[in-house]
């Protein structure tokens, strides 16, 4: 498979930090998020933490040479530690904090039962097997305590992990997102129009134009 193209060459959303695009509140929120390191965890205990990190690596793999990889597991931990709930949950699921603890324990138990070692010690193939089974609702170990593995995968793993990934500026750079539009939003909202403070998408053969535009988003 071909490597994915760099669609927004030269784009760095953090260049907008001091521009009129962001205000003090936006900067404060981003500073708090960027202070979270890859190993920061307050909610998960030492037994759960490696499992959480292993799941994050399988769900949103990142290139090894990223200078600032998204601390996905730590962002999920942060959300659970500050107790910020989604505000809704499936009636068959426990509270999201409890769901994560039960689910991680259950995945570890399943890994031991099927492969004889803990989840994070397994190879990528075995981990994917377990995650696929969870997605299909095929994991029934008593450690799940009645929580359907299908719902755990759908609401907690997919929901929390993917949202954590796309809550980080590194992911924003990848998809050309402009970060919080607060206070400066967007003016030119027709098809294929672009404000000067928006990421410029590289058209094939015209990457240099996009690169030059992307250096100016912080003006």
């Amino acid at each position: 498979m071909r490597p994915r193209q760099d669609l927004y060459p030269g784009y760095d959303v953090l260049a907008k930090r001091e521009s009129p695009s962001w205000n003090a509140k936006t900067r404060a929120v981003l500073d708090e998020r960027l202070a979270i390191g890859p190993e920061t965890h307050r909610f998960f205990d030492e037994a759960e933490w490696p499992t959480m990190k292993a799941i994050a690596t399988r769900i949103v793999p990142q290139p090894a040479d990223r200078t600032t990889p998204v601390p996905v597991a730590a962002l999920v931990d942060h959300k659970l530690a500050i107790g910020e709930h989604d505000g809704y949950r499936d009636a068959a699921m426990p509270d999201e904090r409890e769901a994560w603890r039960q689910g991680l324990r259950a995945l570890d138990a399943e890994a031991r039962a099927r492969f004889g070692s803990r989840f994070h010690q397994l190879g990528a193939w075995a981990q994917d097997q377990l995650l696929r089974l969870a997605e299909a609702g095929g994991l029934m170990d008593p450690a799940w305590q009645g929580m359907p593995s299908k719902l755990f995968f759908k609401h907690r793993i997919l929901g929390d992990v993917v949202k954590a990934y796309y809550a980080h500026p590194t992911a924003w750079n990848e998809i050309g997102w402009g970060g919080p539009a607060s206070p400066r939003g967007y003016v030119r909202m027709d098809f294929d129009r672009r404000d000067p403070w928006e990421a410029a998408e590289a058209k094939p053969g015209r990457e240099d134009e996009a690169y030059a535009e992307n250096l100016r988003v912080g003006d």
Partner: protein
Amino acid sequence: MPTLPDRAPCPPERRHGGPGTILKRRVAPVPVEAAVHPVVVLAAVAAGAGLLTWFAAGRSKRLGPAPSEGRRYAPRGSAVTASAAQRLNHASSMLAASVLFDSGLEHYRGQFFNRAMYTPVIVSSVTLASSLHGAGDTDPGSSQVRHAAQALAGLTGLIGFCFHAYNVGKREGGYSLQNLFYAAPIGAPMALTLAGLLGLAAERVRDADPDKPRLGGWPAGRMLALATAGMLVGTTLEAGLLHFRGAFQNPAMLVPVTLPPLAAALLVRAAGQPEGASQVGAKWGMWAVSSMGVGGVAFHAYGVARMMGGWDNWRQNLIDGPPLPAPPSFSGVALGGLAALELIERRRFRL
């Protein structure tokens, strides 16, 4: 499996030079970094076209010394028509300036997507120069260059109206309120037509018999009064549409949809009265609409400040917020109404 590129903040030269790859410099089809911004070029072209018009219209002539014995016209009559003509030029200047800045701003927002979007900027600059030239010209007698420039403005506005009407109509939903709100503003180009019409009227009034000025076969004062009343109603429709879009969230937004129609009604009444009759009510109406147009700029500036980020975020809010250059078009039309009243009263007005 696809590997995601490293999107961390660092210059791309380093990113592209991974181990084992040959460091490839970006050799450019980079567009030649224009030394001047295209908008600066447009501004220079518009200003140049204006200056050319000014010089082409020739030296403005001052009124000669005391009227000589053999003069055909009673001095009072020619003083009235000259004053009315100048006032019409003021009206046209106001409208042309409003169009110049408004179309410049809004078409910049539209990124001059269609080449035709440059037209109103240049034509309104030509009209503005021609009207300012006329405003300083106290000589009775028209100028062909100014006449031509004003006719060009009138025509350009009509063509622009067709363009905007097409732009609204081609969108999904056609002539729905949604498209009338957010597509090209359908009434805006007509302001340029109004500038042209008032400028044309100025030249015609200069040429007319000072004792019995006529426009298109009708008494000039009445004709102009009815015309400007119609223009006021048209401008009110445009403001009404956009203020309705803004949900009249500030009670002051009701003023431009109530005061101008009232003033227009006074103008129509004035047109029905015999020449020479005093028109105090209509006159005050016109002054009120005039000052409303100027005050509107302050209100719109307040509107910009109210948007998120306020004036610090001017690059968004000046475009997205209430348009600063729009309200003076009311003042322009009202000044035209004052000129009409001067012709009806047969008396010069002073401030």
